[in-house]
């Protein structure tokens, strides 16, 4: 063990160094209190010290007082060396924080015994400190887990409430959307008749209203178009809401994810064919998972469509689809070289109505539907950005155990 010896007496220096070295310790020798303090207050101090009481510059008591007053330092076992006549003051020394004392002249056997006590205490302190820091690590890990779990629960709760809400909401929006759109189509179908009347009116030279009539003739198609776009968008949202508030998981069947990948790619062929190069790496003999084939296809189609949009925004790129067996889970990895997801938004992508697409382009429901389905299947999905740009989604489903 590393031991600091602080003594201004050269004889003691030689003596102590000789004994300590012989007993296998590593000795640091200083000849005054200031130097002792310098060593003991360093970042990695020796954990055992023999300090002479009477020293120039700073006496042993002062060194002890300072060390005990210093915070954030490992425990240093301090043995005070005293002359006989100081014996009465030992009570004070202990109260300041000395662990032990040795009377001069020092008896080698006593020194050895007392040092061994010190070594034991230091080792015990070290072990304690280590298990404390380990406990701290555990505690912070537990805290993190608890926080994550709480987040998940809040999320799940929000999802359940939203599920109920959206079903009702979708229906409420659906009806007005129906009659707006129906009336609009009627208006559109009668517009040519009205337009002819306006034309006739203009040809007859209705000077008074000519300006207004021309304006109406010019603007009406735009008015109808605008309303049509609006209704179409509303319909997109309600249909998203309805699949979001979908019914419970339908009956699960043994399902080969390779086939589902192929089927989903097939469904997305039109969206992928111009700007996306598809690379497949599908594992041979992939075990089956118990799943609802339609829902799994919906998940994959959503991911492929997102990838297609992200890649198109960059003017083209690749889509990599990999299936593999990892531990006892079947994984589908969907990667693209598209625009990626801003890191600060990564943990919000699963929230309903959260979208990075321009207004009117996405409902923000796709990925929350995806996550819902995957979790219904006892699976997990992880989203991350790839090092060289683009996004990676990793889906894991438990392998079906038996039948």
């Amino acid at each position, binding site marked *: 063990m590393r031991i600091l010896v602080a003594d201004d007496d050269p004889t003691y220096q030689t003596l102590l160094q000789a004994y300590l070295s012989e007993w296998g310790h590593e000795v640091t020798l200083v000849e005054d209190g200031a130097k002792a303090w310098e060593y003991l207050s360093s970042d990695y101090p020796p954990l055992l010290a023999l300090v002479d009481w009477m020293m120039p510059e700073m006496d042993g008591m002062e060194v002890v007082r300072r060390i005990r007053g210093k915070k954030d330092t490992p425990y240093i076992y301090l043995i005070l060396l005293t002359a006989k006549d100081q014996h009465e003051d030992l009570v004070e020394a202990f109260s300041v924080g000395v662990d032990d004392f040795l009377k001069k002249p020092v008896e080698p056997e006593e020194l050895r015994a007392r040092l061994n006590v010190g070594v034991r205490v230091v080792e015990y302190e070290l072990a304690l400190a280590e298990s404390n820091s380990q406990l701290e690590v555990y505690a912070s890990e537990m805290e993190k887990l608890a926080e994550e779990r709480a987040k998940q629960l809040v999320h799940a709760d929000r999802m359940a409430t939203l599920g109920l809400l959206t079903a009702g909401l*979708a*229906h409420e929006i*659906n*009806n*007005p*959307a*129906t*009659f707006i*759109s*129906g*009336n609009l*189509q*009627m208006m559109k*179908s*009668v517009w040519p008749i009205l337009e002819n009347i306006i034309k006739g009116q203009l040809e007859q030279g209705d000077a008074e209203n000519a300006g207004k009539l021309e304006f109406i003739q010019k603007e009406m198609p735009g008015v109808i178009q605008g309303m049509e776009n609006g*209704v*179409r968008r*509303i*319909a997109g949202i*309600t*249909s998203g809401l*309805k699949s979001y508030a979908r*019914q419970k998981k339908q009956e699960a069947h043994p399902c080969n994810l390779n086939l589902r990948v192929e089927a989903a790619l097939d469904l997305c062929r039109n969206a992928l064919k111009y700007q996306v190069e598809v690379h497949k790496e599908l594992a041979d003999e992939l075990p089956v998972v118990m799943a609802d084939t339609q829902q799994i296809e919906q998940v994959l189609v959503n991911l492929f469509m997102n990838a297609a949009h992200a890649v198109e925004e960059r003017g083209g790129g690749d889509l990599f689809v990999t299936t593999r067996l990892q531990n006892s889970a079947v994984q589908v990895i969907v990667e693209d070289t598209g625009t990626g997801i801003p890191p600060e938004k990564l943990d919000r992508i699963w929230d309903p109505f959260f979208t990075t697409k321009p207004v009117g382009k996405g409902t923000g429901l796709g990925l929350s539907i995806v996550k819902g389905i995957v979790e219904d299947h006892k699976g997990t999905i992880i989203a991350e950005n790839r090092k060289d740009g683009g996004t990676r989604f990793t889906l894991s489903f438990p392998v079906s155990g038996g039948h």
Partner: protein
Amino acid sequence: MSVRMLVVDDEEEIRSMLARHYTLKDFEVVTAENGAEALKVLENQHVDIAISDIRMPEMDGVQLLRIIREQYPMVRVIMITGYVTLSNALACMRRGADTVVFKPLLDLDEIDQSVELSLAALQRWQEKLRSLQGMKREGRTDPL
């Protein structure tokens, strides 16, 4: 002879929208707020085609459909619904609806096509009926 259509929906705006749309297409349109009201209409006047919502208070569309099938088998029925559930739609088809059309009716073409199909079916039946009535008349006059 104009075709009489019954539109059943608890949402007034949808009733009048469909009524306007089909009046413009030369149908004679009557409306009802729910299944019970629709049955009153059926008791009092001849109806060729009924378009009915599924979810309604008082009597819903599925119940109405069942009664129409039992008591007015010649009426063609088209269901419209905002609830896209396969089981819902299948239940209606099994009970004898001509079609189920999903709301929102972004394109009235879909329901128009259903109406046309129903009309064609109606005409086939009417022709058959006329030829059957002709045969009866012949049968009756023959021995005289």
